[in-house]
């Protein structure tokens, strides 16, 4: 196992390459996922608010 981690003396080069690549890749992936979720919530809120405003306007018109 330690021989495997040692990478024939190139441990720092090999493992830093892999760490850097996967931090970037998974970071980008989770950022994209969370942006999608966030956007869904924002648009959902926007639609509900618009519908509420519409209903309110209708009520006001009926009252007049």
């Amino acid at each position, binding site marked *: 196992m330690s021989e495997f981690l040692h990478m024939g003396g190139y441990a720092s080069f*090999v493992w830093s390459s892999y760490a*850097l690549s996967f931090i970037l890749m998974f970071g*980008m992936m989770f950022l994209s996922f969370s*942006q999608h979720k966030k956007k869904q919530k924002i*648009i*959902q809120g926007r639609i*509900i608010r618009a519908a509420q405003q519409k209903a309110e306007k209708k009520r006001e018109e009926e009252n007049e």
Partner: protein
Amino acid sequence: MSIYIIDKKIMIKATWSFIQKFSSPPHFYRISGKMQPWFMAIFIGTLIYGLIGGLYLAPTDYQQGDSFRIIYVHVPAAWMSMFIYMVMAFCAAVALIWRIKLADIVLISSAPIGAMFTAIALATGSIWGKPMWGTWWVWDARLTAELILLFLYLGIFALYNAVEDKRTGSRFVSILVLVGVVNIPIIHYSVEWWATLHQGPTVTKFDKPSIHIDMLIPLLVMAISFKCYYITTMFSRARTELLERESNAKWVTKLLVPTKAD
């Protein structure tokens, strides 16, 4: 003869309507959402297989020792940097010729992922270069062309965000992408056209790949893995972009707030 002509017309019409249907935002949104978990699963599966194969099972290189194992992230990332650019160029052409909205969206959703893979290729190449060439960086053809690719990606993203109107921005971006295509063959052939420190192609050539099969298989598996990663992540970004651009469309309301659909 006339039947043949009618058939041909129907065929063209059917193909066109298929393209339009598939590229329609609600359809793409639904299908991509369904396909995404499968691509994610293939990505993780091939990644684990590729990493075990590359880091553990593949024999040590007789010249470079274990440092050659950087190849399993460096080369797939470099391939992806060019592959994604070609996808974007295809989308740019489609967007300019047929004005298919989805093409713009796939294009701009791909740009950050392409930039990331280019950065990974450059960084891991640099880390590999230090023990093998004795230097982190040289201004040779392959490295410089890849650096230009990174700037192209960043430029595309900056241009898109600089223009207020997304549709106008997309047209500018498409033209920039098509102009930048010239860089791709330069990257690919740079190691043959110019004297360079970078080694020549070992896999992507017409001759037999000059790499041992036990080393080659994990490399190809990692390439598949990275492609599935790209599709998974791009789908997510494209869906975000679709929601933003189509936020007033009926299908978005129906999807997100089913009770307020009318």
